[in-house]
């Protein structure tokens, strides 16, 4: 099947022709498959934010192209608005972008601009609110009366209400406490499972990425350093660490165990998987 998004030899240079010229993205190429949950990880300055702003045409490539269902999104620049409806981008700290009088109106802003009206609009708003766990009685409140975590849900609902085919989330859980992070990720996982839509999750947290996504893209210094399933990526733990990137704490324990001579596969990233491996070792050992 054809990938839903293709990034082909993308380069983006800021301040071209000035002494501050710097390429934030250099010759990046990768595909995003329909319905997959893709994680993008990399340091501040690795090019993550620049990259995702190309996916819905907020930035124009200096070189290379972005294909949405096989079609260059800049083929007809006047239709770029269509692309922004199809690829929904949720920025970091989206709660700062709330502006309407009520939660309902804020969520309705996007779909109303898409041309939805009446029952169709109402349905889109309520469905999106439900997906992120905003209750009906909260819809008529001012978004500024809500807690930080709830505001963020409202901002997310505003993008979901446009029913994008690809949802791009930039650090959706930054600044939330552990319970808030887990709740929000559970909403996002449910949305992915129930709607089968493609999701791209950008995060600093290897643990969060490891627990949620099907495939990981690791960025470093404006390039794609590696891509693969979590197991494939974390099997290269040493390489990640020497590149100055983090690996999940569980992977680090497994790497340390292997270094100490325990016969273990270090490409694990969940507590359960490491527990299973260790128990199997114990059983094997007991037989001798």
């Amino acid at each position, binding site marked *: 099947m054809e990938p839903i998004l293709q990034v082909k030899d993308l380069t983006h240079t800021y301040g071209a022709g000035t002494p501050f010229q710097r390429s934030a993205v250099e010759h990046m190429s990768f595909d995003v498959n329909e319905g997959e949950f893709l994680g993008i990880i990399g340091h*501040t300055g690795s090019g993550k934010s620049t990259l995702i702003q190309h996916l819905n045409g907020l930035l124009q490539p200096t070189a290379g192209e972005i294909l949405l269902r096989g079609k260059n999104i800049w083929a007809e620049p006047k239709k770029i608005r269509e692309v922004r409806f199809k690829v929904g981008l949720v920025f970091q700290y989206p709660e700062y972008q709330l502006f309407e009088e009520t939660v309902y109106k804020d969520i309705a802003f996007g779909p109303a601009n898409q041309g939805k009206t009446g029952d169709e609009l109402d349905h889109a708003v309520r469905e999106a609110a439900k997906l992120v766990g905003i209750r009906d009685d909260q819809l008529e409140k001012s978004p500024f009366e809500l807690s930080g*975590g709830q505001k963020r849900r409202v901002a997310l609902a505003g993008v979901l209400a446009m029913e994008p085919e690809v949802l791009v989330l930039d650090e959706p859980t930054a*600044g939330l*406490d552990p319970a808030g992070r887990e709740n929000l990720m559970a909403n996002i996982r449910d949305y992915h499972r129930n709607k089968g839509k493609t999701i791209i999750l950008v995060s600093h947290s290897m643990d969060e990425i490891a627990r949620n996504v099907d495939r990981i893209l690791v960025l470093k210094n404006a390039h794609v350093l590696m891509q693969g399933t979590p197991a494939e990526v974390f099997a290269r733990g040493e390489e990640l660490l020497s590149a100055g990137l983090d690996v*999940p704490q569980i992977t680090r324990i497994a790497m*340390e165990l292997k270094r*100490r001579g*325990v016969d273990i596969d270090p490409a694990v990233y969940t*507590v359960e998987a490491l527990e299973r491996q260790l128990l199997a070792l114990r059983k094997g050992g007991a037989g001798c």
Partner: protein
Amino acid sequence: MDMIETKALEFAYPAEEGEKPVLALRGVDTAIEKGSFVVVLGHNGSGKSTFAKSLNAILLPCGGKVYVEGMDTQDEACLLEIRRRVGMVFQNPDNQIVANVVEEDVAFAPENLGVASEEIRRRVDDALAAVDMTAFMTHAPHLLSGGQKQRVAIAGVIAMEPECIVLDEATAMLDPIGRQEVLSAVHKLNREKDITVVLITHHMNEAEEADRVIVMDDGRIALDGTPKEVFTQVEPLRTMGLTVPDTVDLLDRLRKDGLDVPLDALTVDECAAAITAALAKN
């Protein structure tokens, strides 16, 4: 000697008209020892930030007392002295930088305290060196990374030569590298300048190297002890909506599976060593 002491501390934010105020702190009794490194953990709404802001009289108690080196925070005559001794670093680096040049920003507080100019020069140089930002002395703060900005904010506090620094979720908006930079800077200040540190956070792993961990829940102190004592309270931590470190989670599971491992091997190295030893015994 205690740096800060709280006695039956209560605080309520003003309620909306017609509604009853809800207590954010409901009787906090504790003492922060001089020279210690204390981490305060808790989920959102647990009262940890309210507690932090009570420590240098940004918020004044509605009930009970807070003493900073014996000075009552409600005594207005002591206010300047309390703020000089207990400096605060906040969450958003962009909201606490006032000048256009790094060294001027660091000089802001001592200038306001009326410190002589040669002395200000010395303090600014010392403060920037203490957080490894000397190289950025003449840079514009808005071009720095988040971790660098927070270190400038910390230098600004250090230039007041405080005895205690309170960091109110100062690492929450930073990436892992920025977080590490800030943590090493405050650990160094604690070690080398003997500055008392109170670090408010919801990142468990920032507490690994602390002398003491206080967990707040519903406006009260729920757990209090060394990192090993606190993080081995697996069930209480989970009921409070906090996660336990992956090391403890793994050891807890292995113990339930009948493997003879300790629960308090917090760091990756300790944990791996404990498991290796237990497997060898088997």
